[in-house]
């Protein structure tokens, strides 16, 4: 199984792979995001209870899902990097982290903006919002640890270790926060029942999720390309690539 993967362990092949994948991801992203946003904002019917404010769901839910998804893919890359000593996987960890942090930030901001009309407060110590906030701290930890090291080889390894420690802790944190929340829950919080959502709202949601996933892919690929270039700066293939155009 590893045979077909092996060539991509070489930096220049990985760079080429990024280049081939990038257009597909870009097309998916642009199409899905345009369709999803227009549909979600203008064509999806208004919610019976929350009226038009529920339209935030079309960016809040995808960004929340992708913030978790990006973290788990980052952790998988970190495990691959440490176990099989693959340099490119290490770079992938660093490439995914910023876009994951951005997704988390979007989920938090949209959550707050949705919470104000619904709950009457910008911030509520709701279990999901709280664990999202902690997730943001974990992302920022990985990023700031990476940037604190001068030796980027050591930086990559350290970031990988932290990402793995984080992913082991994440379920524990999530579970504990949820449990803490049910313990302290006040009466003001209304729960959203997402399972009973109407298909006419579900479709734009799915399309938006696909669009956000594509966006995470696009940014990860671009940043992975950058990281490879940065690390292989002095290699001949980079030079010929640059001088070609």
């Amino acid at each position: 199984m590893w045979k077909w993967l092996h060539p991509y362990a070489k930096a220049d092949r990985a760079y080429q792979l990024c280049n081939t994948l990038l257009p597909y991801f870009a097309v998916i992203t642009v199409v899905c995001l345009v369709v999803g946003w227009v549909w979600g904002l203008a064509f999806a019917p208004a919610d019976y209870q929350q009226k038009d404010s529920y339209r935030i769901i079309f960016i809040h839910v995808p960004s929340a899902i992708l913030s978790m998804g990006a973290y788990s893919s980052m952790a998988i890359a970190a495990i691959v990097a440490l176990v099989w000593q693959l340099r490119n996987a290490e770079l992938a960890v660093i490439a995914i982290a910023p876009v994951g942090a951005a997704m988390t930030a979007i989920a938090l901001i949209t959550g707050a903006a949705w919470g104000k009309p619904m709950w009457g407060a910008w911030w509520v110590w709701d279990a999901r919002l709280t664990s999202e906030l902690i997730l943001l701290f974990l992302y920022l930890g990985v990023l700031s640890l990476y940037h604190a090291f001068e030796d980027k080889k050591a930086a990559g390894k350290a970031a990988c270790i932290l990402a793995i420690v984080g992913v082991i802790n994440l379920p524990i944190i999530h579970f504990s926060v949820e449990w803490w929340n049910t313990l302290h829950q006040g009466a003001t919080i209304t729960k959203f029942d997402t399972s009973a959502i109407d298909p006419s709202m579900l479709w734009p949601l799915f399309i938006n999720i696909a669009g956000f996933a594509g966006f995470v892919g696009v940014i990860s690929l671009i940043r992975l390309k950058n990281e490879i270039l940065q690390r292989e700066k002095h290699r001949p293939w980079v030079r010929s690539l640059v001088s070609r155009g």
Partner: protein
Amino acid sequence: MQVNHSYWQLFKAVYSKDVTLAFRQRAEIVNPLLFFLIVITLFPLAIGPEPGLLARMAPGIIWVAALLSTMLGLDKLFRDDYHDGSLEQMIASPYPLSLCVLAKVFAHWTITGLPMVLMAPMFALLMNLESQALGATILTLLIGTPLLSFIGAIGAGLTVGLQKGGILMSLLVLPLYIPVLIFATSAIDSSSMSLAYGGQLAILGAMLAVACIAAPLAISSALRVSVS
């Protein structure tokens, strides 16, 4: 020279070195405790001295203070060994590095965690905590503070090679402390309401068991990265 491998001997050697050093520079033991005490003193001054309010907030205050004073000692955990080259000698020993790390974490707990457990009754008195909650406070500190040392040591190992590792370490470690904080404070809360708190203690114990096994591995690989 005779070579005689004994894991227990190694554990003792590393542990006793750290503890001896701490006892030679008393400040290392006393300062975190004083810090703990001062933080706890600040709360009544900030939020008012009503006994009811204090008792309500006591578990949280005691635990936040415990988290912060554990962080104080963590920065030093590997720093001296890193700078004088002892860490390299530890890596270049025929023993597994994780065992040395286990001994060092245990020593750190003896120096910072254990005194806090012993002083807990006094803090509970200061905060007007109900007497039935005292047992829970001591028990959660007893199980929770080694957990803090283990998790914190991962951060300390990752940042030991950095110039300004101290603040960064707090940023990395504090989010990971959240589950400990939640379960410990809720155990004290339950006990002050005369409810059973065995469940929370069991969860803390389970986390400690996992940390005992997994954390030394993470810490030793972090140290290898920092040394390279």
